[in-house]
């Protein structure tokens, strides 16, 4: 490596390290604050960076006051059913749009594209009114409701089916398999990576959603992690060790999943950038 190149690469590393620290500091600060006492967290002269004694009081308080097991359960159920619904309906529609030529397909697909371009807030009031009329607020169904089908998923799965080779499908049809069986037994297993990408994408966005859960599930036993955090902020106002402890408890499982399945996460999100 030449001297010039070495200097270049050092500069690049310095830029990347500074930016990495900027990304990490909020998480570190969340972690450090959660182990401080309130007095320590609001001490400025001198300003306290590391807690003098690592105490887990904030965690005990938060765990006593909030039922995190229930919050996890509600969040996981919402994510699980949204994934199942999105994967099943989008695979079916994606296969039909990607591989079959039939009358009305063009128009039907234009509805899918149309939905993708409209800001989702436009649907929220009527969706809420439907849930309310069905007397279903504060249920898992209410949380899953807007995600029963997925226009984005349909678009994604259509791309996945479109690029599959013809011969397998033709062979299966010549063997006398119906279109339905060809889809389930032969074609669907070939879209595994795209299905995983769609699942991860669905999970991340469901986990991050705040407005919809806040609107439909207001009962304290039907909250999800995001809406529970929003609610507790009002109650704990300046008890930052508690707020940070709760934030960390809410974030850690997803972060661990991300660190373990990093490749799939990155691919899952990158596929959302598929070009039209």
């Amino acid at each position: 490596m030449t001297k010039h190149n070495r200097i270049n690469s050092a500069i690049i590393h310095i830029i990347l390290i500074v930016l990495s620290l900027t990304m990490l500091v909020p998480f570190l600060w969340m972690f450090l604050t959660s182990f401080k006492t309130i007095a320590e967290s609001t001490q400025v002269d001198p300003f306290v960076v590391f807690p003098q004694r690592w105490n887990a009081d904030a965690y005990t308080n938060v765990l006593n006051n909030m039922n995190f097991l229930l919050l996890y359960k509600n969040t996981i159920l919402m994510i699980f059913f949204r994934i199942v619904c999105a994967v099943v309906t989008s695979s079916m529609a994606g296969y039909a749009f990607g591989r079959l030529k039939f009358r009305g397909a063009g128009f039907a697909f234009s509805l899918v594209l149309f939905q993708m371009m409209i800001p989702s807030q436009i649907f929220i009031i009527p969706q809420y009114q439907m849930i309310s009329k069905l007397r279903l607020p504060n249920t898992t169904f209410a949380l899953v409701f807007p995600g029963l089908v997925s226009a984005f998923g349909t678009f994604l799965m259509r791309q996945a089916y479109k690029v599959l080779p013809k011969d397998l499908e033709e062979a299966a049809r010549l063997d006398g398999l119906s279109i339905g069986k060809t889809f389930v037994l032969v074609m669907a297993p070939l879209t595994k990576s795209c299905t995983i990408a769609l699942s991860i994408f669905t999970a991340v966005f469901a986990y991050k959603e705040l407005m919809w859960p806040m609107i439909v599930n207001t009962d304290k036993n039907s909250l999800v992690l995001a809406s529970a955090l929003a609610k507790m902020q009002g109650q704990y106002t300046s008890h930052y060790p508690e707020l940070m402890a709760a934030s960390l408890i809410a974030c850690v499982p997803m972060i661990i999943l991300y660190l373990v399945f990093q490749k799939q996460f990155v691919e899952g999100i990158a596929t959302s950038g598929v070009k039209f």
Partner: protein
Amino acid sequence: MKRQDLRHTTERNVFFWGWVLILPTMVGLIILNIYPMIKTVYQSFCKTGDFGRGNIFIGTANYAKLFSDPEVWQATLNTFKYMVVEVPFSVIIALVLAVLLNRNMVGKSVYRTIFFLPMVAAPAAIAMVWRWLFNSQFGLINNMFHISTHWISDPAIAVYSIAIIGIWSDIGYNMILFLAGLQEVPKEYYEAASIDGTNGFQKFHYITVPMISPTIFFVLVTRIIAAMQVFDLIYMIMDRSNPALSKTQSLVYLFYQYSFVQKDFGYGSTIVVLLLLLIMVITVIQVFAQKKWVHYN
């Protein structure tokens, strides 16, 4: 004759299966999206009765109110201010990072992991920790730099402070999309340019940007739409008593307040129709403008 019959049955068969397979999605889209959209537009011409019950058709009265409502204009301005800062910074920083990381280097995957981290954290948690970092008395930022900026309660800067959080949250996501776009640029282009003696900046300007301009366009369009819908951060950071609230609340925040706090679905619908129109206009402008700078092969 027989052959034609067979073709006819296959065609009918395909038609049958095609519709069976798309039926759940189509029914879902109609119930969850098409009907709600029509209803929202209809409700924007209605007055909502007490406790959110009943629609009384009142023509364009909501729109008349909207156009003379200073709160709505301020919220529109706030939304634009947020978007105009959040989108360019998060896109440019992400693009530079993607270019820096798109090579064989030590620690590449570690950097990528770190930049992407905010993407998997709940926005509610992100907002809380930033609120704490921004705290004017006890916050890390002010104490580290020995300043006393009122990041989130000074009406002049609060919306930009929130944009900083937005940038921080979105860099990793944009970067991943750019890295995916960069994979498609043939390496020979850079090799040829190196032989011609071009430097890094020239390569970036003459090869990278034009080659991944479709990705840049896609990221810009989607980021602008997302920024126009900013809500979570503002909802979590701005208390009702915050003096900067009126200078930071976005259109979606106002929509939420009217629709789900005051239960005025009529006016809430009118605000969200305004948002839809604004997003449509911006997107159409971008689609026309792309012809000048986006290169598709």
